[in-house]
């Protein structure tokens, strides 16, 4: 245990794990492979895993700082397959877990991997609040429009008419529109992609990683076992359309006027309302201080008011007033 110092251990003040002397050799993505994925052959989740490896490789994220968190579901098995620090938490609460981790460990960029049931049904309220608080993390939702792990029940994104074990006559409830939900909740980065376009998935992951605050990628990820063909209409190889969002270049050209401004909330909402297969890319992105940064500011002010006194001195002063 340290003696009292002028730098108390803290929740948000920089936490600095030791870095190895000298630069470690760059690693290759194969080194990130861990347990053999237990997913069905052909499952869309494989693509996401592979691209996460590529993201880490490309960015050379410090090995011991890669931290993947998930809830429960097929998609949430993710951390077992990554040779890095990871957590397989409980159903629907990975975002809440990551909130505490992110706030107390400012040195990490936490990635959360989730499914449509995990993120939008049981975890829906946590999503809402992590979004409005702008907690710094990246959430990747592998949306297969079905409950995979529990073997084909209706999910909040299942389209009306989808025949599942819990809706043998066809789903009757209006599905959640994740993008609209996220935009209205105040998420500061909302993107959509599909496992059928790996380059695009990687692009979205990189942009999410560069975003400060709460970034979400809604990634269509086909469940070949319980909902094959769900996303064919978005897959050019199956005769569908994968339409990219053209973002404004701010080049003053007349074409640019028609392009999408990701900071325009209403425009983002309009894009999100397009019928399936809709469009892909960054729907919404704004720069707003992350809660992490606001808390840090609060701490800096409070610490300055104590003249950076060590904890013992601060507590002593408080106790003296209670005598």
């Amino acid at each position, binding site marked *: *245990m*340290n003696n009292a*110092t002028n730098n*108390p*251990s*803290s*929740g948000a*003040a920089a*936490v600095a*794990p*030791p870095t190895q002397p000298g630069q470690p050799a760059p690693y290759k993505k194969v*080194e990130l492979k861990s*347990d053999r994925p237990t997913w069905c052959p052909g499952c869309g989740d494989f693509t996401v895993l592979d691209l996460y490896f590529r993201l880490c490789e490309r960015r050379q994220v410090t*090995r*011991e*700082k890669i*931290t993947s*968190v998930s809830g429960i579901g097929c998609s949430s098995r993710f*951390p*077992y397959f990554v*040779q*890095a*620090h*990871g*957590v*397989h*938490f*409980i159903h629907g*609460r990975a975002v*809440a*877990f*990551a*909130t*505490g*981790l*992110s*706030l*107390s*460990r400012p*040195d*990490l960029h936490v990635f959360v991997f989730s499914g449509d049931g995990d993120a939008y049904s049981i975890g829906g*309220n*946590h999503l*809402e*609040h992590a979004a409005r608080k702008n907690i710094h993390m990246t959430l990747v939702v592998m949306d297969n429009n079905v409950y995979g792990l529990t073997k084909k029940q209706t999910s909040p994104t299942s389209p009306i008419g989808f025949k599942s074990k819990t809706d043998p006559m066809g789903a009757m409830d209006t599905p959640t529109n994740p993008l609209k939900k996220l935009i209205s909740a105040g998420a500061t980065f909302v993107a959509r992609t599909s496992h059928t376009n790996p380059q695009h998935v990687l692009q979205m992951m990189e942009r999410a990683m560069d975003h400060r605050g709460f970034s979400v990628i809604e990634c269509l990820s086909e469940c070949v076992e319980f909902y094959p063909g769900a996303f064919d209409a978005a897959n050019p190889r199956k005769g569908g359309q994968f339409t990219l969002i053209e973002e404004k270049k701010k080049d003053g050209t007349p074409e640019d006027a028609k392009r999408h401004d990701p900071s325009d909330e209403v425009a983002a909402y309009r894009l999100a309302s397009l019928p399936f297969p809709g469009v892909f890319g960054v729907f919404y992105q704004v720069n707003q201080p992350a809660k992490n940064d606001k*808390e840090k500011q*609060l*701490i800096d*002010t*409070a*610490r300055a008011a104590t003249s950076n006194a060590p*904890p*013992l001195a*601060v*507590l*002593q002063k*408080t*106790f003296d007033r*209670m*005598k």
Partner: protein
Amino acid sequence: MSTTNASSSNEAVAPNAVPIKDAVIRIAGNSQDGIQTVGELLARLSGRTAQEVMSYMTIPATISGGPSIYQVRIGSDHVLSVGDVVDVLVAFYQHSYEGHISALRDGGVLIYDPDQVKPNLEDKRFTYVGVPMTTLTIEAIGGKGRDKGKNMFLLGLIARMFDLNLPKLETMLKDWGAKRDASTMEATMNAFHAGYGFDIGRMGQNFRFIPNEQRSGRPLMVMTGNQAMAYGLIAAGVRFGAAYPITPWSSIMEIMRAELPKYGGIFLQAEDEIAAVCAAIGASYGGRVAVTGTSGPGLALKTEAIGWAVMAEIPLVVIDVQRGGPSTGLPTKMEQSDLNIAVFGGHGDCPRIVVAPRNVEDAFYISIEAVKLARDYSCPVIILSDQAIGFRVEAFEVPDLKALVQEMPIDFTPRGADFKPYEDTPDGIPHHAPPGTPIANNNFPILSGLEHNEAGHPGEDPKFHVVMTAKRRRKLQKLAEKLPTPEVFGPAEGDVLLVSWGSAYGPTREAAEKSIAAGQPMSALCIRYLNPLPSGLGKIFSRFKHILVVENNDSGLYGYGQLAAILRACCCDARIRGINKTDGLSFKVTEILDAVRAQIS
């Protein structure tokens, strides 16, 4: 009020004052009358003048106010309970008089406002002192803010009546007034001095506390149980907490939200109790024990996540400031009925640590200890406080902060290639590597709620579940071996042993003291570690004829409460029976003694 003949050192100040060792004062009015302020100032002053003190108050069920009381017991010796009967009753209104006169002891003093209260003067058991408090306050402060000033008039009145330390009280009033504007402060002081000048001694009696010679000389400090917990956690090095507001827990999170930034920490108000416990677990996984807290209904919501922390073996501190349940129950009243959910709540075989503070001072120390236990055993620790401890004010010796205050640096020590997060060691205790820890061979740990092998990865082989279930149990059995056997107060063997936990400790211990003083030996024992239980209890019980467990919960389907049931199960002793009640109030000493008599006859 216990009077004695001891000679006084302040004879000159109050020549006719009766020396006393203990007084119970109850102020009854409406919540808008500011009686809580008076009560708190009295309690704090007592601590500052080396008196022990305990307070109790009722909060009206509605926000808009209503009848409310504040009771303070001040003593030269230790104060264990807030007092069964009242020595001095102050009644502002007729309803205050009618509602509380039954609590006044024979020979007690009733101070009442004759403009508002018409007492039955025929009842010769009491001394009646009519003080037109409203009128005199208006006279003193000139007709404005009378409702605000009446309480300060009363404070002055009581200060004179009990010969309290005037300079200290004035300093405290000035501190209290520092946040208020000058005219309010002036009115406050005028009202206070008018009260002090109104010498009750002319009509009744003045009293003086005998100084306690045995005091160690360490100064006392005064705080509520909720304050004590918040500062205990901070002293222990906790720098992250998350919670959702609920009475009577909320004030702990309010204090921590304001205080933690000064220490570089964060307190998160989460969207619900589930998010709160999950965020705290996330922060703990980050490498530093975090806290979440709540009251009964919130603990029910947290149980699934606590189960994960047990399974994944992550340290965590969970506070439950108990209130009456189930459901919304009695949100502003005390009860000790969450023991079962604390010890057994959740699914699966799910061993966790449960501890309970027995008073305000203990709330401070047990919070520090809980953090240590969570770290040492990599396990969630639930602290069961309750509304009575949380809200009442007590004086206790200033803690030795130098020895107690800790920092909790994250342990990033690089781990070897053979590192396994769930290694099946003899003591079963894991030593986690938080994210950021380099691991040789890049063999990183996964923390898992699925049953796992030593590396944290799930496996089909059922033998893992056998091994890991035993490992999670075994580490708490190791802890049990190290826990101190509770001390027995009173004779080591005999007829009756009273067993208590949490806030039932004070009145239970006082009951034993009273019984011993009356020539009827009785012993008492308080259990702080509720899960695992310390060893040696069976041996202690075997020396008594009757083992009676005093707890504020229902006597249940089979005639004994929640702790009694656990003790019966683990000691196989059918002589263990219960003394229970569910009226939302702490035990009175007489209630316990009456119940003992009824049980053993």
